[in-house]
């Protein structure tokens, strides 16, 4: 780029190439820009939609968001254009605030937000400028399932061993309030198993190394990564680790011998108030991977169009082919379910909210 403009600068400086040509091009572009006369009969026809992604361009979840947005517009009558706008600030919180309160409620702005943001609202943080329950939920995909993995040579063969241990196992996590940290707190709260959580790891790789080196003994990992990626495949084969529990309601068919947290809660007879706290914490998993939302207060007919388009996009052969190649799990979650879940996790008695807040802010 520098080369091209420098060449131009030099030739023009000598007065060989007229600047008029460029002026004409600029004018032509300026005139082309605002032409927008076709939106009479069909609202979306000729419009440009914005899809806000709370991640940096190139992040692997950003790729998913881009694929969804590409396939969604195919199923919106009038085939509007859609542009993806990345707003990665504050872990995506800025994107959520933008879709909720800054964008117009005209159905032209969609957003892909992190499920964990409702904790900010529960905790009463001023940075969360939204009411989680009032987002227009469009749809989501791929429920998160987490596993608790433990080094096989550690003296903890099951959750019961941790419950009765005098010295708790050391588990790694990235940051307080991250999904992996929440899963560990969930195990502590719901099952009464004490863990020593070491936060401050930068990502999965660092944690995997820490486990191999014995710096820590356990961590929470998504089932999707566990079944597809290294080092987990080698670890499984060598019997280096054990999987102590999984978080979905039903056992994942690929891990038939691993108990779910619901089974374990039944077995250890988790009291009702702790169970409610657990359900709030488990909510993040059920919102799926970066749910798609829109601004509150969009006309109902447009909401229907958007929701239908999302549902169809997830069945679109192009998307499915791409998903297969990239090993994305596509598993449609209905907007009605998200709406219900959003109310459930926020409408909690004060003592539950207080407890959730304590858990997220403590080690």
């Amino acid at each position, binding site marked *: 780029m520098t080369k091209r403009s420098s060449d131009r600068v030099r030739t023009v*400086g000598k007065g060989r190439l007229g600047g008029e040509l460029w002026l004409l091009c*600029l004018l032509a572009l300026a005139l082309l820009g605002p032409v927008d006369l076709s939106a009479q009969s069909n609202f979306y026809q000729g419009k440009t939609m914005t899809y806000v992604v709370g991640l940096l361009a190139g992040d692997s979840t950003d790729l998913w968001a881009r694929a969804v947005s590409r396939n969604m517009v195919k199923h919106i009558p009038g085939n509007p254009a859609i542009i993806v706008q990345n707003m990665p*600030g504050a872990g995506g919180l800025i994107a959520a605030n933008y879709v909720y309160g*800054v964008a117009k409620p005209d159905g032209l702005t969609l957003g892909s937000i992190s499920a964990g943001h409702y904790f900010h609202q529960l905790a009463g943080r001023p940075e969360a400028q939204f009411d989680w329950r009032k987002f227009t939920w469009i749809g989501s995909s791929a429920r998160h399932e987490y596993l608790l993995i433990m080094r096989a040579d550690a003296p903890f063969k099951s959750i019961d061993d941790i419950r009765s241990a005098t010295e708790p196992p050391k588990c790694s996590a990235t940051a307080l309030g991250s999904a992996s940290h929440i899963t560990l707190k969930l195990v502590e709260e719901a099952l009464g198993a004490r863990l020593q959580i070491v936060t401050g790891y*930068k990502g999965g790789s660092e944690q995997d190394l*820490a486990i191999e080196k014995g710096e820590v003994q356990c961590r929470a990992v998504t089932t999707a990564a566990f079944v597809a990626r290294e*080092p987990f495949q080698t670890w499984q084969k060598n019997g280096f680790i054990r999987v102590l529990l999984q978080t979905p309601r039903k056992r994942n068919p690929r891990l038939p011998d691993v108990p779910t947290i619901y089974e374990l809660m039944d077995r250890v007879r988790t009291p009702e108030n702790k169970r409610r706290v657990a359900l709030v914490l488990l909510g993040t998993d059920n919102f799926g991977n970066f749910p798609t939302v829109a601004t509150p207060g969009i006309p109902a007919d447009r909401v229907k169009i958007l929701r239908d388009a999302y549902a169809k996009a997830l069945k679109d052969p192009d998307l499915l082919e791409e998903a297969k190649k990239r090993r994305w799990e596509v598993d449609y979650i209905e907007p009605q379910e998200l709406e219900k879940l959003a109310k459930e996790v926020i409408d909690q008695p004060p003592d539950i909210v207080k407890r959730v807040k304590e858990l997220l802010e403590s080690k």
Partner: protein
Amino acid sequence: MELSLLQAAVQGFLNLLDTSVLFALLVGIGIGTFVAVAPQGIGTPLVYALLLPIVIRWKPITALALLLGASSVSAICAAYLPVLFGIPGGGGSQATVLDGYPMGKRGEARRALGASFMAGGMGCLIGTLTLAIAIPLAKPLIYLLGSPELFIFVLWGLSMVAVLAGRQPLKGLIAALFGLLIATVGQQAQSGVMRFVYDQPYLLDGFAISIIALVLFGIPSALDMALTKLGVEQQPAPLRGSLLEGVKDTLREWWLVVRCSFLGVWVGIVPGIGSQTVDWLSYGHAAQTCKGASETFGKGDVRGVIAPESANDAKDGGDLVTTLLLGFPQGTSTALLIVALLAMGFVPGPEMVRKNPDVIYSAVWIMGLAGIGGTLIGFILANPLARLAQVRYSIMVPLILTFILVGAFSANRDPIDLVVAVAFGIIGYFMKRAGYPRPALILGLVLGDLLERYLYRSMASYGFGWLARPAVIVLLILASASLAYTLWDKWRASKVRAAAPPPAERKPAAFRLRASALYPLFFMIVFSIAIVTGWEWPFIAKLMPVYVVAIPGLVLSAAQLFQELTGDEAELAQASDMDEAYGTSLDRRTELARTLAFFGWVAAGAAGIWLLGVVIALPLLALLYTLLEGREKWTTSLATTAGIFALVWGLFDYMLEVRWPAGILFY
């Protein structure tokens, strides 16, 4: 099919003998060159993300040739921006600006570029060779180092401030502490405490290092041109030196290249250190070990270019060791590479080593070829591009401001990015003027977060027991020895200096108010606010910002203030040698007027982006700047404007489909 390593290496090469593979490699090299000269915001991760949907339909080796070709060449050719524009290059090429820009200003752009590409090519080959022989060694190498060892290593890196601080150690320490303080802004991973966030969502993640490094060096460089009216009032230094001279420099410094390359490989292999530190660590290493560095580094010493460039390009080989052999991604680009490989049916890690060693060796060969190709391309483009150093300020300043503002804004695409950019641009200007070394600030900023994480993790996992680990003890001895050597060397040098001219007659300390006293006062206020804000926090959150940084910072700034008020004129005038002060010969009023006008343009550009959006604001800035400030002809002015429009709209919006947010007026 199990292959012996030699067979795999041969097979890996044979895999490449295919026209489509070679063609893809050439395209990749082209893309990489393009990324190297494009503004920040177009980096390898974005290119990978855009190419991925295309290449996963290709044959695996062809796809690898394109991706690896692009990423390694973009690293090798990254020195253009620092040398010619005085702005830090993309990730891993930031420190090059420290000596590359002074060389460019002296007219030695070609020599600097030649040295950088040669060093980059050699670094890339060393990194690649490491990857080739690391297959049996990768694991033990990584497992040698846990959090405690990494903590000592980072501490060692931080001790390089001693070199970067130059002749006024107090100012260097204050700058480094200021950098460490900035690094603590945001929600702390360990305690969840929101440190210095003041309820601003923007600050939750802390400041983006990329913005701060960019403006801290870029804004003063651009101001330098505007002050001297380069090319109009003051002729640029005539182009001297040749690419060949740079190549010779690099070959002469082969031992430095080897050392820095291994440092780069090591940073690449160890997960979590990240590409942003590699150039600063190697620059610090060079400054600490090269002969006479404390006199010449920062003033255009070619060794200050060779060190970061060789380390940065060797790092890619290290990245691939961990990515391909162990399956651990090292950052966004390698995470995307893993995604691509998975899509093609390979599982990076031990399985791939067992089943497809030939593909790993193909990657090695691709990296090697791309390294050679990138170096050649760099050489070919260097001669014409070096002339950019001769273009007059009225065209260069809007171009550089475009690169800076676009680079800053692409960090979060939040208007506050622009506020941060302008604020730190002003801070950078004052630091340069007053001789507070900016490299020390960046080192503190880059290493601060790592320092805190590693210490915390060591304590949490081992208690104080980590201090007794043998690797920790060895590293600690090495670090102390090298620090002691540096300090001794500096002390000796200062004695030589003091002995040469007769010591100026010392006037008795007299209390005098000077404008320069405002600088330590500023830092005192900053550190005091930090102490007051952080006092309530739990110990984990408070340890670093309050006890390690702010309290010593307050004491040191107070000492500096005392020195400014009572010190000897001649001693104070002695500029810090690692970060030269402005050497303009303008009278005060002209200088002040031009400086204010320049910052007016910067602020107007930032405000314009907020109001009108990038696509309108930056071409408009170029149009007005060239006409009003530069008094250029209409044609020249429009051509510059059109060039900048092509850059911000044509490249980002149109070609790459990365849309800029609209200005607030168009909401």
